[in-house]
């Protein structure tokens, strides 16, 4: 027998991961409703697959035939521009057939219930449903009334899993890992599904997460999660930025708030907005934002354009992560 370590022909190729087919399977979930119960193995599989799909986006022909014959409906009960476009682009890059449905100008404005809308869509033989809804749990409810694979594109203040996945892909590319990093999420945590998905995902991946915002915008039950020691809560921005690797600013959502939970936009910016002097005093700090940015509120305008702001990387990664999720979940979608 030849010896692998001494024979020159058997040198290892450094760029092929030493995984074997026996150790890998797909996702343990049939739907993507939230990241709260996804394992680190599943999250890693989604991120690794997303990197492969991102390579496709750099080719002369930015389309693969992977989901040919699969029909995806984008069911948006709540207005959205970038998430809807990102999903639509991901579906088109995978050659899926797509149907768009938005609440305005549809039967919903005529009083149709979510269940009836869903069952009508199902009757049209749809394989996958990407749903955004103002009510938390709406995607979960859909899994009970239709057979299709459900992907949550944001449900109320519950979860927005693909946003957290693209954030994690951006972080992991920047640092080569997620485990052990200090990530601070700053802003309106109470109303933020992005924060919730990121907290679940980042903690599962072994990051230390700090939550920072005005007291009325912090959820009261967060101490339930702090028990494992990785989650820290503070009302002071300088505390959140101390030793921090990634500062994730959240959008102040005027439309979701409805009442004044902090004195003024200007005071918010003074106390919680990330400004140039923060970037100057924290030389390695990376800034992220799920968009759309309110310039001069969560981030000073010059911070948005700074080279350490990865906001546009996040957008590119959004398409790749959504291709990955659509691909990994589509495997089980065909009913014989």
């Amino acid at each position, binding site marked *: 027998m030849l010896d692998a370590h001494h024979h020159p022909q058997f040198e290892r190729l450094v*760029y*092929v991961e030493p995984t074997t087919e026996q150790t*890998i399977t*797909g996702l343990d979930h049939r739907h993507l409703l939230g990241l709260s119960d996804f394992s680190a193995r599943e999250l890693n599989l989604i991120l690794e697959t997303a990197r492969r*799909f991102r390579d496709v986006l750099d080719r002369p022909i930015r389309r*693969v035939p992977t989901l040919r014959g699969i029909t995806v409906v984008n069911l948006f009960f709540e207005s959205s521009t970038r998430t809807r476009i990102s999903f639509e682009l991901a579906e088109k890059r995978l050659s899926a057939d797509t149907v768009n449905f938005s609440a305005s100008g549809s039967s919903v404005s005529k009083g149709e219930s979510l269940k009836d809308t869903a069952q009508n869509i199902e009757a049209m033989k749809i394989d996958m449903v990407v749903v955004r809804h103002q009510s938390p749990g709406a995607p979960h409810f859909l899994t009970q009334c239709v057979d299709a694979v459900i992907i949550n594109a944001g449900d109320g203040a519950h979860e927005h899993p693909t946003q957290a996945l693209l954030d994690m892909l951006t972080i992991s590319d920047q640092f080569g890992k997620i485990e052990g990093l200090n990530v601070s999420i700053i802003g309106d945590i109470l109303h933020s599904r992005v924060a919730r998905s990121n907290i679940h995902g980042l903690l599962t991946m072994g990051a230390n997460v700090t939550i920072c915002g005005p007291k009325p915008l912090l959820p009261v039950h967060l101490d339930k999660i702090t028990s494992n020691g990785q989650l820290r809560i503070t009302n002071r921005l300088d505390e959140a930025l101390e030793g921090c690797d990634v500062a994730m600013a959240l959008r102040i959502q005027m439309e979701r708030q409805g009442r004044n939970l902090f004195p003024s936009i200007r005071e918010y910016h003074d106390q919680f907005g990330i400004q140039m002097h923060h970037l100057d005093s924290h030389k390695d700090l990376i800034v992220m934002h799920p968009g759309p940015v309110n310039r001069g509120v969560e981030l000073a305008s010059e911070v948005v354009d700074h080279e350490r702001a990865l906001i546009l990387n996040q957008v590119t990664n959004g398409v790749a992560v959504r291709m990955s999720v659509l691909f990994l979940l589509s495997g089980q979608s065909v009913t014989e």
Partner: protein
Amino acid sequence: MEPNDVIKAQLMDAHDLERTLNRMARQIVEKFDLDASKASSFALIGMQTRGVFLASRIRKIIQEVDGIDIPLGILDATMYRDDFRMRLKQPVVRETKIDFDIDGRDIVLVDDVLFTGRTTRAGLDALTDIGRPSSVHFLVMIDRGLRELPIKADFVGRRVPTLPGEEVRVRVLELDDKEGVWLVGRPSSPTI
């Protein structure tokens, strides 16, 4: 071997494998009249996963014997497969890494086993999306027959007629704990 595999015969040992790779390297050099000037108009592309290692070894042989550095690319055709939704196991998308322009090159695509021809078809489609090679030739270690598409290999390590339900396992030390080629039966799982 994989779970449920029942070994029926060993078709090649490590020595056979190496000798066959040497022979195919000679065939490639002869067929494409390879010399140092051809390094920019020729390339080997290995198909994930074991084709990559076979291609890498052929490249190494040509480098040592002929002193020619041939570019080597890696191709994963999972995104182009037509059967991934019919499989019981979710396929893994692996890396595609081709650092050179394939336009105008003579390409030799390398895989371990040629069976239905569907992976080869997917690989050709993937190549077509990346560029326009001047020609594509196909090299396999084992041609086990039972084709479902009009595809043939230009360089064949060994032809082994097999039955439906059997599988051919090519194992290489870079990835596996042993090296050689085995014919196995799969009594408890359906063939795809």
